[in-house]
């Protein structure tokens, strides 16, 4: 009893002591987060200059970050901030910079090239943005030249949009028993097969909306053992385009971590479809798609919003096929900037290196979300 009281007193005293120490002599990183001066105040090297900039971006100390730039005369501070986080609401609007990497690319006595990789923590997971920065020496300090990209703008104009919109009237409480409700959209899994990966079993496939109405879709799979007992049930979560317009096809990917294919006797698939109000607009063109082989296998391209409505978040899903037309892999990427009408936005989807050699074709679909509503 007495020793417990002694321990409580000791812990209280230690806590007070540590709080005092932390307040009087804060760690540099904590001070930087708290908005005090930068953790790396001076920039004696090019990497240090880029590191300081990364710290300031992480602390959202935009004024300091802007002030540290060598070419700040070429643009304003809001332009710099918008260049980083977007001019219009997008995925980065509701994100914070979790961490960053600095990688020197080239250096001489008076200038250097440094790659800055920003790891944004977004609502849909981590999102990377990579910047190749030119850093110049100014006296005994190094300063970053920010590669500002002035936002492309479209001339003010009216873009007539007259695509279909579907609204739904469901049955009401006064309907008699037996009266039909609006039929759920008819969807069909047109391809499905399991793949064994290092971290478990992955089910790949494609789902078709074979109806004439839009559908909200998702797919759930249950792995059954050879004795027909369920092993695990998982859903496609966001590895699918949830809104399917008539005759549209989406890929899906369902992960079963820590399960071996040898354990699986059969798979029970359960596609779900619900009628949903939707619009056929906006139409997004996917231009200049290129499959890049390993190493660094990826699919790149540009998204082009052909409508007049701003798309705030775009989700690109790539389906990759082998020569026989079988689905080999499904990968996705959230584009971290808004799609403005007729302004191309690049995307890059990474492909597992071991699968890249077997891929001979691909198909890409886009799921979009606009803060103004509709999709």
């Amino acid at each position: 009893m007495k020793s417990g009281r002694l321990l409580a007193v000791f812990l209280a005293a230690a806590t007070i002591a540590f709080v005092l120490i932390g307040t009087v002599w804060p760690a540099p990183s904590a001070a930087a987060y708290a908005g005090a001066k930068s953790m790396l105040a001076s920039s004696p090297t090019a990497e240090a200059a880029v590191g300081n900039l990364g710290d300031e971006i992480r602390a959202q100390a935009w004024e300091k970050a802007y002030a540290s730039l060598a070419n700040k005369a070429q643009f304003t501070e809001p332009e710099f901030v918008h260049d980083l986080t977007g001019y219009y609401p997008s995925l980065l609007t509701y994100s914070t910079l979790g961490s960053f990497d600095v990688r020197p690319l080239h250096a001489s006595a008076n200038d250097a090239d440094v790659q800055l990789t920003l790891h944004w923590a977004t609502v849909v997971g981590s999102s990377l943005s990579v910047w190749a920065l030119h850093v110049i020496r100014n006296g005994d300090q190094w300063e970053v030249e920010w590669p500002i990209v002035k936002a492309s703008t479209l001339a003010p104009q009216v873009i007539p949009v007259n695509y279909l919109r579907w609204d739904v009237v469901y049955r009401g409480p006064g309907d008699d028993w037996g009266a039909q409700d609006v039929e759920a959209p008819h969807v069909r899994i047109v391809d499905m097969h399991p793949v064994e990966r290092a971290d478990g079993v992955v089910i790949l496939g494609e789902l078709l909306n074979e109806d004439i109405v839009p559908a909200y879709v998702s797919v759930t799979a249950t792995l059954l053992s050879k004795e027909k007992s369920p092993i695990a049930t998982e859903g496609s979560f966001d590895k699918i385009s949830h809104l399917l317009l008539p005759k549209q096809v989406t890929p899906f990917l369902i992960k079963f971590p820590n399960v071996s294919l040898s354990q699986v006797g059969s798979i029970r698939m359960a596609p779900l479809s619900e009628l949903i109000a939707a619009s056929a607009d906006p139409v997004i063109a996917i231009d200049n798609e290129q499959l890049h082989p390993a190493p660094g296998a990826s699919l790149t391209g540009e998204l082009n919003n052909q409508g007049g409505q701003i798309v705030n978040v775009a989700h690109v899903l790539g389906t990759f096929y082998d020569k026989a037309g079988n689905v080999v892999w499904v990968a996705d990427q959230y584009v971290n900037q808004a799609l403005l009408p007729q302004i191309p936005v690049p995307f890059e989807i990474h492909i597992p290196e071991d699968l890249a050699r077997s891929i001979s074709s691909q198909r890409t679909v886009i799921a979009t979300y606009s803060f103004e509503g509709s999709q």
Partner: protein
Amino acid sequence: MRLRVLFPLCIVAATMMQPALCQTATMSLPAAVEAGKAFSIPITGSGKATLYIIGLGQVLKRDVQLGQTTSFPAGSLYDAGRYLAVLSGDSSTQSGEFDVLPVNRPAELAFLARPSRLPVALHDGITGAVYVFDPYQNLITAPTPISFELTGPAGSVQKRAMETHDGSAWASMDSTGQQGVDKFVAHAGEISSTRVIGQVPGDPCGLKMTARQSGQKLLLETDPVRDCSGNAVSDGTIITFTETFNGGQSTVDVPLKHGVAEVQLANHNGATISVASGIVLGNQIHWKD
């Protein structure tokens, strides 16, 4: 519902506990009574007693004079099922059972037609199931003649006639080749119930596009898209255009508008352009300026 069951059971239990007093009273119960019809129960003996008629949905209580016939007017018992009659006198208790049967005259049909929307020209794609009820909402379990009639958008009629089995009957019909609205009617005697079925176009058939130069771009346009029965495919249906050139690819999903889909893609001399809708492939064009 629980009270409905407990209450009669309690009455029965209470009457059973009474001392046997009326040894000579006997009831002549009918074997069956049609729901809603008047009926009577002759009772012999002398003295007074209480008659309970107990069913799952109804309980009747009458003070009766033994040696007389107790009459129940029309509408007294209307829930079909097995009923227990208990005669409780001063000195004895007697009980018996009889059935209340549904009126063999359909008054209402519960008609389930599925689906409410389906593609044209689908064999056995439409199913109708009907349950027949009498005026008191009792399921008529006796075989009842039923006819189903599906009238297509073009006026063609499919008919099926059958009898119900245990109160229900069902039939399947084909969707016809023309899009529009089907009228699906179930008849039982003079009673009918109607449902509406939407027949929608099927998959595109013979999907074909043409290409022409439009300024710096290539304008791709489909012919009016129709299904294999000749119906115009619904607006909003997604048509996918794919242009492959020099290892690169451009794809656009375009919804049909006024029966056609059109899109502008980059003009690459030597590009291969294909069109598809869902799992249906259309023609392919090798573009040359």
